[in-house]
């Protein structure tokens, strides 16, 4: 039996201007190479969804819905902006968006790292289940909604409703925060939190900030007040 390495080619290029997303994803699900370039995505949906392996995928343009969804071990970079649900339900690996991301970035993601170098829209990290998200710019309203585990770092501002009904995810925001969501509160920044923040920024490639104590010092931490964990009729108005 051939070993995988013997059949691997160098880099395979797909042009979505002439080839279909199904063909691309079929190749990525049974890979014959470790590196892929995807040209002319033009907002196509589900580009590089369901990757399951240590593949390096460079997407040269803007993508539509659910890019890199369910990613496991893949290292996927979008040289443009991403539509709704980028890296939704990611299990592991790294997804990097050079531009902006639409709503529900990293929704329900269990593991891995999602880096958005620009801004993220509403509901960034909704129902996050253990992945890490680092956003270079701002996030829109309703970020970290019902986020259960994982970390979200926002280098810019966060919109209204941050952390509504949040469970145990931790959120770090450097800029302004709008009205906090129900049961979300600001928490102390201990040394362990500062170390965690530094590590996340470093992994995201934002080393300039990670190595600057003054930059790190402006971040504040948000999390759950844990008053909504158990239903209590006194709280019914807050749900």
């Amino acid at each position, binding site marked *: 039996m051939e070993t995988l390495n013997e059949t691997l080619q160098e880099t395979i290029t797909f042009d979505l201007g002439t080839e279909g997303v199904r063909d691309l994803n079929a190749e990525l699900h049974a890979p014959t190479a470790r590196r892929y370039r995807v040209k002319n995505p*033009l907002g196509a949906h589900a580009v590089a969804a369901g990757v399951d392996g240590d593949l390096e995928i460079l997407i040269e343009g803007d993508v539509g819905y659910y890019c890199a969804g369910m990613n496991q071990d893949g290292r996927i970079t979008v040289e443009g902006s991403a*539509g709704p649900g980028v890296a939704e339900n990611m299990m592991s690996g790294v997804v990097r968006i050079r531009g*902006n991301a639409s*709503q529900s970035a990293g929704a329900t993601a269990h593991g891995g790292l999602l880096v958005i170098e620009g801004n993220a829209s509403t509901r960034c990290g909704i129902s996050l289940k253990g992945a890490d998200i680092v956003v270079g710019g701002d996030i*829109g309203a309703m970020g970290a909604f019902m986020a259960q585990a994982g970390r979200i770092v926002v280098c810019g501002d966060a919109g209204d409703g941050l952390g509504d009904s949040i469970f145990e995810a931790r959120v770090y925001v450097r800029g302004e925060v709008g009205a906090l969501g129900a049961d979300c509160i600001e928490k102390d920044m201990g040394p362990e939190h500062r170390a965690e923040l530094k590590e996340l920024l470093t992994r995201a490639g934002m080393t300039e900030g990670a190595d600057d104590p003054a930059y790190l010092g402006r971040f504040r931490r948000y999390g759950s007040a844990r008053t909504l964990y158990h239903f209590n009729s006194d709280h019914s108005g807050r749900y």
Partner: protein
Amino acid sequence: MCGIIGLHLRDPDMQGQLGELMAEMLQGIVGRGPDSAGVAVYGDRKRCPEGFSAVSLLHAQPGVGAAVAERLPGTGAVEEDRVGDTMVLTAQASPEVLSTAVAAAVPEAKVVGLGEDMIVYKGVGNPLDLAEAYRLRDASGWQGIAHTRMATESAINAEGCHPFSVGVGVSLVHNGSFSNHATIRRELQRKGVTFDSQNDTEVGARYVANRLSEGDDLETALIALGEEFDGFYTLLVTTENGFAVVRDEIACKPAIVAEHPRWVAMASEFQALAKLPGIDEARLFEPEPGRVYAWKR
């Protein structure tokens, strides 16, 4: 799920390309709404010359033009253009005079569009086939919108197809669903407003048209809509001098705007904008929840 596109041309030199650009954009939203599609085109002077008005009708049979012309002595012929389910009549008369004549001559027909430079087409079927039937690629003008429908709350028929155009030159397309439309419908009915369908979007369109007729500008009318209506919506509303986008406060329904010195475009998805000329230089943004964005000609 439904799909929306809109294109508002700032550069008059691009008017000849309006239909071609819209047909290209439409391809990006077919999957969002495969059951029906409608279009409103503003400023196509081949279809509705200066000094003329156009009325779009459903349930009108060939020959209605002659029947309407009889009610309009001295205005010349009433041109008929049957496009699938839609019959477009044009005549050298004001919109009000033309619609009065239509109501008298063909009371069974439903008016689904009326304007001095706006023409509305509605129909059921694959959006790309409908775009052919509407001769969308040949259309010219300064503004146009289109909608592809995936019906969720009322029947798949031409009446339920968007745009809803219930005021002179006003068109509204909607992605989402209103939850309190029955209540607002009853309130408008008490004010004397009549309805053509059971569709929730028609209530939104009648509400906006009612506010505009009471003197609101488009932005004010849409802010008022945000206070009255519950539900999910991205709306694109056009008038004979404007173009406006608004999303509800939760903003689940997608929208993306591209603003370029030569044009403003809006679509449900980026892929509908990807091939517009100059898209790489355009300012791209998602409308913020609950905020009205309006442009004037």
